[in-house]
């Protein structure tokens, strides 16, 4: 967008991305709390305990997958924030 750069628009973009980070942090906090609540619930159902190797293996596998998703979530939000801001600031010729 050559020639269209303006500081207020840039500030609006930065504020928008900061809000996006806040939303991601909120969702991840809710998710982590739900995950711990879920584990406590399953244990309270007397189906499993921390001594059960098979349960632990499966739970860890699920947790690894969830952790990978959380990392990908934060990375995507960060990439989008950085990408859109850089795109606006540098305004490559093809845009």
């Amino acid at each position, binding site marked *: *967008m*050559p*020639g*269209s750069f303006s500081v207020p*628009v840039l500030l*609006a*973009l930065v504020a*928008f*991305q900061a809000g*996006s980070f806040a*939303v*991601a942090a909120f*969702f991840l906090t*809710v*998710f982590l709390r*739900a*995950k711990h609540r*879920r584990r406590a*619930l*399953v244990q309270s*159902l*007397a*189906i*499993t*305990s921390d001594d*059960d190797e*098979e*349960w632990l293996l*499966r739970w860890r596998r*699920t947790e690894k*997958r*969830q952790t990978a*998703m*959380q990392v*990908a*979530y934060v990375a*995507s*939000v960060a990439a*989008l924030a950085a990408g*859109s801001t850089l*795109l*606006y600031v540098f305004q490559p010729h*093809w*845009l």
Partner: protein
Amino acid sequence: MSIRHPSNERLIRFMRPHWITHVFPLFLGTLLLGAGVLLVLLSGFALHHQTWIAIAAFFAGVAVLTLAVHWFFVRMLSDSMEQILVTDKRIVHLQLKLLLHELTNEISFEKMKTVAAVKDGFLENVLSYGSLVFEGGTSVPYVAHPNATVKDIEQAMGLR
């Protein structure tokens, strides 16, 4: 392999829903990402005619991309919390949709005597997934290989 607990309850199966549940979020996520990228690219074309349209298209594109990323990951994280546990005494279906819905459905074999595997439609038969339907109409959907699961449940009912 099964686990015996001090309460004499055996964990027979630990299942997650069939992968078909991920198809819709992937499809819609891709669609939204495509729309967002298209809007950002279109902002470049609009610039030479109307600057404010270019800025509006750029912001709309970024907003759609942001929405797509948040919606997709919240949906996938929620789906990862869905589990189905089968023991020799009960089935526990755990489901969570972040901030929207939480379900802990416990079906005891003491009250339930029959269970059916239902594979309805072309997709369910080809991809081998379906629902477990219990007495009273309670059902657990998107179970992979429901016939094998029902066989295990029936064995568990007989072992009580």
